[in-house]
């Protein structure tokens, strides 16, 4: 009986130590992406990527205010929250305002997100959103210029359900293609509307 108690206690200690050690072991393996965020104001600039309807360039919308969001369709929460808020903002706009706005969703996960899949995804939000993606080289050039950070988090190369760490800013590009500002993750629909109206009136002829 004594032996049994001793063994149980020992087991408890081992489990306890394991639980204590867990968060540290996790932290150590995850300290990779965070330090890449650029402190300088990102330069932005034109880019061309693939959509289901063929190549699309930022400069195609030189007469519009453009909002660009970088993410991936596997994302269960962060991307749908942001695009959902954008969609709610879009519904508050007048027809005239809608006509002067273009929302772009750029997937940094082109392995899984084909242009067709992106179209299906973007159309769901019913806000004229165009889904775009490109090769890793094309994407990396753009994310560097916009200060986007992303990193594929895949421990097992065969795991098709990997997630992608990504920054979740919405980039505001004024008519003419200049990067004006970036809005943080989970910006409310009302704040999106406010920002859209601010930049639309600023650039009235």
């Amino acid at each position: 009986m004594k032996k049994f108690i001793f063994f149980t206690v020992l087991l408890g200690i081992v489990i306890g130590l394991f639980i204590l050690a867990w968060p540290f072991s996790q932290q150590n393996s995850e300290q990779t992406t965070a330090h890449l965020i650029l402190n300088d104001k990102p330069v932005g600039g034109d880019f061309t990527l693939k959509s289901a309807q063929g190549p699309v360039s930022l400069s195609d919308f030189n007469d519009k205010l453009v909002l660009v969001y970088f993410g991936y369709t596997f994302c269960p929460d962060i991307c749908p929250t942001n695009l959902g808020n954008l969609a709610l903002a879009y519904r508050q706009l007048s027809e005239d305002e809608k006509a002067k706005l273009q929302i772009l969703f750029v997937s940094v996960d082109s392995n899984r997100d084909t242009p067709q899949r992106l179209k299906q995804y973007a159309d769901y939000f019913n806000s004229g959103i165009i889904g775009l993606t490109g090769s890793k080289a094309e994407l990396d050039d753009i994310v560097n210029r916009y200060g986007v950070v992303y990193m594929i988090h895949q421990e097992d190369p065969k795991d098709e359900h990997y997630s992608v760490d990504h920054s979740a800013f919405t980039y505001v590009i004024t008519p003419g293609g200049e990067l004006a500002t970036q809005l943080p993750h989970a910006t409310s629909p009302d704040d999106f509307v406010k920002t859209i109206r601010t930049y639309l009136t600023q650039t009235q002829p």
Partner: protein
Amino acid sequence: MFKHTLALFAAALSIISVNAFADNAADIEVEQPYVREVPPGAMATGSFMTLTNMSDQDIQLVQAKSNAAKKVELHTHVHDNGVMKMRQIPAIKIPADGQAHLKPGGLHIMLIGLQDGIQAGQTIEMTLVFKDGSEKSISMPVKSVMSHSGHMMSH
């Protein structure tokens, strides 16, 4: 010294054994659970809820099961300098007499490899498994990410 330590472990053990007799599932109340509707073709979604612990012991949610997806995992989001990192976690702690909030941007139960038809208006069944092995079945409505406007998406 050894005696002292042993007493401490014995005390710890007694807490563990008290836990073993408790029924975690019965002590947990689940409020407002829902699954987020995803665009057609999307492979994953999150489920959110508030878990209230009515006992005076911490309770760990260690697993969730559902037929709606190939895999169901406990996850959290870590905000790291503006970068959103989603990570699987081994357990979600519901503190004694306290709550765990599963909400967008943070803790969630992730459904991966969705079977067809996660659409607003449907109900998803899920089983929560606690550390003592007890289980709790819940039914969750599927809600559109845009539903809080009052305009449901039509399909």
